[in-house]
């Protein structure tokens, strides 16, 4: 199993390198004059010259890439075009905000989703199960920014006016409610479905039957035999949903004007701020790969066949 994990780690590193190639190709190794493309048609010759200097556009593409990669490996993400600050320093606060938002959403969504899923399994094919199954199917189909807008229309200033719909620097803690609620609704459905499916499988297993036959109370059967065996696959889905959050926050932050990495990315694209775009995309892809890797390892660890084999 250790070998399997090491192989996955190596492959994760390789993927990250391939991702860096793609990011570089899409933003800097463009056909034609990259500087002209980045700054637009009405750029002054002086600005073009400065940009060429900053991105080493005079060098061959391979050399440019090596210099860029070297900078990143050493933690030098370049200087933002629009505010002239080092990208790493500029990103510190948005990263913190985004991680807080994602963390809060995960904290809200996971326990509720697990409870709903487990309860659906216990009430299989009854009203609660049907309602939750239809509900998760519907919520899962709607794009998350649409869910966010529907919540704003319903609960925001134009509707019941319960919560603010736009994040403001001096606003109170209630401005977190709608973004967190939106992201929670976006990540919860697959967790509910996986929890329900796994619990049903576990409850029908022979060891649960055996436990019931020897006269164990239903509560003990659930907590001692059913729940622990359902954790593996469910934990994997939870991790995958967290990975999804890394990309999913962009539209939600844009919608609520939330000062995180997603909003930074959209502003950077509007300003054609190449170093900032490169850094944010690499960061998001990095988190995505890392969390997916964790999901993989959890999946391996939870699978008894893998765990026991060639120990």
């Amino acid at each position, binding site marked *: 199993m250790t070998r399997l994990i090491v192989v996955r780690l190596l*492959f994760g590193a390789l*993927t*990250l390198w*391939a*991702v860096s190639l*793609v*990011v570089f190709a*899409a*933003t800097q190794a*463009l056909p034609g004059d990259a500087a002209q*493309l*980045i700054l637009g048609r009405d750029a002054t010759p002086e600005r073009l010259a400065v940009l060429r200097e900053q991105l080493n556009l005079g060098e061959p593409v391979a050399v440019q890439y090596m210099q860029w990669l070297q900078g990143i490996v050493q933690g030098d993400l370049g200087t933002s075009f629009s505010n002239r600050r080092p990208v790493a320093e500029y990103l510190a606060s948005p990263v913190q905000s985004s991680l807080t938002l994602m963390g809060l959403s995960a904290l809200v969504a996971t326990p509720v989703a697990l409870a709903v899923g487990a309860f659906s399994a216990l009430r299989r094919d009854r009203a609660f199960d049907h309602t939750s199954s239809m509900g998760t*199917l*519907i919520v*899962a*189909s*709607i*794009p998350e*920014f*649409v869910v966010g*807008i*529907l919540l*704003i*229309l319903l609960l*925001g*200033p*134009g509707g019941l006016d319960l919560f603010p*719909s736009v994040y403001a620097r001096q606003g109170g803690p209630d401005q977190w409610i709608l973004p967190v609620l939106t992201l929670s609704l976006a990540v919860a459905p697959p967790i509910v479905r996986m929890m329900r499916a796994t619990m049903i499988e576990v409850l029908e297993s022979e060891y649960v039957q055996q436990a019931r036959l020897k006269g164990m109370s239903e509560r003990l059967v659930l907590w001692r035999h059913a729940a622990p065996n359902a954790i593996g696959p469910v934990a994997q889905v939870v991790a995958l949903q967290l*990975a*999804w959050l*890394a*990309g*999913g926050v*962009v*539209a939600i932050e*844009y*919608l609520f004007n939330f000062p995180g990495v997603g909003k930074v*990315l*959209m502003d*950077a*694209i*509007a300003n*054609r701020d*190449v170093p900032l*775009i490169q850094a944010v*995309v690499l960061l*998001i*892809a990095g988190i*995505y*790969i890392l969390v*997916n890797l964790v999901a993989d390892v959890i999946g391996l660890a939870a699978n008894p066949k893998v765990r026991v084999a060639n120990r």
Partner: protein
Amino acid sequence: MSTPSTPTAEAVAAPPRRRPGLFRTAWRFGRTKVGVVLTALVVLVAVVGPFVAPYTPTEFVAKPFETGVDGVLFGGDNRGRDVLTRFLWGGWTLLVLAGAAAGIGVAAGTVVGIVAGYQGGWLDNALMRVNDVLLAFPQLIAALLVMSIIGPQVWLIVAVIAVSHLPRVARVIREATRKVIEQDYVKAAEAIGLPRTRIMAVEILPNVTSPLLVELGLRLTYSIGVVAVLGFLGMGLQPPTADWGLMINENRQGMAVQPWAVALPVTAIAVLTIGANLITDGLSRAAIGIDRGVEK
């Protein structure tokens, strides 16, 4: 495609009775019917809309965000254009872009999946490793990255979404192919010396249509979401086009005073994606045979 031949002819011609086609099985679920109705409703609005719109999409009929004007049912948008007209005009772009992206992505993914699954060996390995790299990007981030410098262009939107579907479809079809190639009819076709390309087209492809259709439904639902969100982020179709995603972006500042300009496109997108997903769910239940499981 599974041919829906008449059941009587089937029963007579083929003694080991064939299972009813995927569509027929899927139709038996209530949710599929609901899905078809919801989807048809939105498609109808998008297709017929431009012909029944009261104004032109760029005509000024009211003050910005003004409501309650005579003859302007849902008021004016951020520039004072008719909200109803722009809503009726704004759907078909979404449908065409999402449909094209899903179609191309699923077609390409199917080819890659079948070739990888059937040929195996180094080709399979190489294709699947490239797949893994493509999967390392969240779909939306990949689209934003590619368009960040080149700018949002229609062909690029379709291409980027199609490419992001490719690895996901390929993975599913590869699994399905590997199950099919163990069947005797494939071995028989190999034994009589049928060319491998022909085996892939005639023996394998018709036998992976169930997962293929489920994938098509799933990718269509995702495509609608991605096209809509790109429009919403201002990275899709550009003004003055009437487009549901873009409409939401343009009018969200006035949501509190003029909710219609946002509510109409948002509702349409929600209904469309719910409909598409209900159909997909019906198809996938039919494909894995949930109803047959109950019969035992």
